[in-house]
């Protein structure tokens, strides 16, 4: 190889080297440029995608993407929050979320999505992960690739649970309102500008006798209807004219009264309904006030009736307030008291009518009224001109509508006459008691005065005998003896009279007397001759009475029997029989008997049938008196020479 050749080759190589170096440099620059560009592009891309990402992540509504099988492939933060699922971990299919009641609706919406490529305003319920039910609003669309092939579906999901709930509440309250209106106790009609019915209710139909559902009346012309309904009113033309006038005025009318043919009275109100400048119609209301009106009328009539009674009754009536001030009196009270109503109104009843002694009583009575007690009492009133009268007052508290005591009402009856009679009776009783006492006293004095001479005679006779001892013959001595016996008899008589007058004069207290014991004790002290046997058939009862007096009864009757038994074998039989309110005792003997004609006489004072030393004839009259004192009777059965049975009853 030549040098030239080598040189040429070497030079060429050098050039080549240099060129390559330059090319490399350019390449290097270009590649640097390229790098920078791509670097910038990448940054741009990143920027864009993160921008987009930010939009999805940051929109308030949930954003979801599902693949064609319905599996979720993307949830934004709001979606994760809404559904509670983390789809990076949970594999969730859209069907899991659909509320079972909305399934049909969901399926039809999916169909829309497939055919039209989107759906809008889908509102349905979904389940969250915690099985909570939420209302959601979804707009969805299909996602296509560059070949227009569907690869996924995306959706914006908005939580409308709260909104839905308030909407439901609104409907509910609207329903309530509607049902309230329908069932209102007043008939209402809401009509529009053209007087067509917008709303009415049951009561309206009832009041006007319309046999229809209120809903069916909507749209009906009120003018025509009222033409038909006018016959229901007592004054049909008046009804129509007034209605027209109100309609023309379009101003609130309250409290018109309409009398209906059937006697009902309706109160009619009218008011335009304006909501913010805009007329919403006109409301008529009809209320049945018949009861209220008739109630007021009957109340009025009742009031009048009672007013008449009060005004015309013969009893004085006074109404007082809590301070005893007179609020009202009736005419009778005016007559009773001598004051006119004008003179007493506002005056204190207590100071006006009561004496000093009576004031305390009235105060007491006032306290009773304050406690709500009613009662009656007697009161000595000082009338006009100082006349004193006795009033029987029936007082009762007076209440207001709230049940508070606001005073009292007193009905007064003048009982002065009765009271005077009562006083008179008391005086008479007192006098009677006194004269009884005096009589008793008198009996004692008389018996004392009668007995004194007897004593003196006895002393004188004794002295005559004593001073003439041995000088008197037998006949004289016998006569002296007779004087003494007569004196004794006389004294006994006086004693008996005194005893008789004493029975019943002393007010002895009644106690339980065991007749059985008393009788047994009595038998021991009485003189019973040996030929007489006393038999007792029953146990004698316990009686309420005076023991001494009851004993006197038995003693007298048994002594009588003993005295008058003339048979060799005397029998006295005591028995008792239980009557309802009394006991009937019997004392039977086999003595001389008593003739029928004397049966009444023997109980009268001084009617002894057989005068004897120890019989003054007062015994049986005392017995009768005692029996009568014990609310009993005494009678007898007797046959001369066979015997006598005395019967007497004593109250239990």
């Amino acid at each position, binding site marked *: 190889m030549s040098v030239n050749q080598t040189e040429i080759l070497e030079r060429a190589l050098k050039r080549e080297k240099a060129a390559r170096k330059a090319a490399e440099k350019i390449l290097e620059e270009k590649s640097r440029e390229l790098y920078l560009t791509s670097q910038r592009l990448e940054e741009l891309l990143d920027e864009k995608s993160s921008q987009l990402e930010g939009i999805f992540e940051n929109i308030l509504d949930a954003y979801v993407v599902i693949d064609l099988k319905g599996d979720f492939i993307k949830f934004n933060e709001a979606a994760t929050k809404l559904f509670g699922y983390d789809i990076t971990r949970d594999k969730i299919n859209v069907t899991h979320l659909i509320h079972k009641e909305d399934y049909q609706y969901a399926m039809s919406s999916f169909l829309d999505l497939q055919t039209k490529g989107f759906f809008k305003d889908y509102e349905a319920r979904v389940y969250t992960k915690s099985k909570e039910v939420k209302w959601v609003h979804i707009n969805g669309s299909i996602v296509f690739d560059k070949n227009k092939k569907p690869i996924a579906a995306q959706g914006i999901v908005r939580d409308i649970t709260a909104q839905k709930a308030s909407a439901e509440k609104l409907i509910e309250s609207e329903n309530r309102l509607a049902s309230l209106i329908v069932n209102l106790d007043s008939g209402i009609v809401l009509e529009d500008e053209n007087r067509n019915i917008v709303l009415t209710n049951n009561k309206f139909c009832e009041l006007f006798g319309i046999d229809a559902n209120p809903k069916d009346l909507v749209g009906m012309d009120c003018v025509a209807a009222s033409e038909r309904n006018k016959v229901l009113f007592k004054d049909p033309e008046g009804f129509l004219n007034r209605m027209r006038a109100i309609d023309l005025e379009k101003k609130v009318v309250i409290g018109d009264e309409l009398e209906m043919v059937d006697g009902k009275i309706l109160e009619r109100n009218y008011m335009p309904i304006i909501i913010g400048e805009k007329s919403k119609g006109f409301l008529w209301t009809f209320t049945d006030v018949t009861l209220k009106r008739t109630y007021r009328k009957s109340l009025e009539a009742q009031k009048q009736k009672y007013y008449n009674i009060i005004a015309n009754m013969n009893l004085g009536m006074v109404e007082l307030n809590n301070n005893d001030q007179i609020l009202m009196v009736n005419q009778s009270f005016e007559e009773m008291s001598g004051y006119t109503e004008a003179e007493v109104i506002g005056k204190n009843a207590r100071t006006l009518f009561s004496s000093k002694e009576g004031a305390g009583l009235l105060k007491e009575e006032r306290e009773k009224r304050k406690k709500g007690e009613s009662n009656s009492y007697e009161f000595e009133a000082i009338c006009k001109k100082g006349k004193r009268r006795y009033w029987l007052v029936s007082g009762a508290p007076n209440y207001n509508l709230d049940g508070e005591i606001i005073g009292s009402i007193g009905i007064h009856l003048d009982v002065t006459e009765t009271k005077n009679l009562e006083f008179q009776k008391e005086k008479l009783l007192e006098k009677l008691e006194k004269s009884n006492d005096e009589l008793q006293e008198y009996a*004692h*004095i008389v*018996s*004392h*005065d009668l*007995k*004194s001479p*007897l*004593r*003196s005679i*006895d*002393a*004188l*006779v*004794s*002295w005559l005998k004593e001073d003439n001892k041995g000088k008197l013959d037998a006949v004289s001595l016998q006569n002296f003896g007779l004087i*003494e016996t007569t*004196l*004794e008899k006389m*004294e006994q008589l006086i004693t008996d009279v005194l005893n008789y007058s004493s029975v019943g004069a002393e007010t002895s207290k009644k106690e339980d007397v065991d007749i059985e014991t008393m009788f047994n004790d009595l038998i021991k002290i009485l003189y019973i001759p040996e030929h007489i046997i006393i038999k007792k058939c029953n146990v004698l009862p316990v009686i309420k009475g005076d023991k001494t007096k009851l004993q006197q009864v038995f003693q007298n009757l048994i002594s009588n029997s003993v005295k008058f038994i003339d048979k060799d074998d005397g029998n006295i039989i005591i028995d008792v029989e239980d009557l309802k309110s009394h006991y009937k005792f019997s004392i039977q003997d086999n003595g001389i008997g008593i003739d029928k004609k004397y049966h009444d006489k023997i109980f009268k004072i001084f009617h002894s049938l057989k005068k004897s030393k120890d019989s003054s004839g007062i015994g049986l009259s005392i017995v009768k008196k005692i029996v009568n004192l014990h609310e009993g009777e005494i009678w007898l059965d007797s046959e001369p020479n066979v015997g006598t049975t005395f019967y007497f009853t004593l109250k239990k």
Partner: protein
Amino acid sequence: MVKKLKILLIEDDMIEIMKLNRTISRLKLDHTIVEANNGEEALEVLEQKDNLPDIILLDLNMPKINGIEFLKILKADDVLKYIPTIILSTSNNKKDLLECYKTGVAGYVIKPLKYEDYVSKIEKLLAYWSVNELIVV
């Protein structure tokens, strides 16, 4: 020792006075009887404070001042109230009896019908008071 009593008898009935006197002489008792026919007379007798009776026998039934009234006058007196006063009465009226004992009597004797009974009662009464210690004023 049997005391000799000075007895004031207040009695309006003459025979009753005779009865007491005769009884005392019949029983041979040595008592002195001062007679007063009514309360006023008796009060006059009782004026002599240095010669007061040991006991008083008082009839309830007297004119003018009656027995109970007289008794009350007696009991109201600071000195005379100490003289034992025995009622002699026909009345066994409970009211009188109660009233007498309430006012303050030393005894209450009913005058019996029979003279013999009277003698026996008076004998016992005087025997009782003649053995009693009495306040000497």
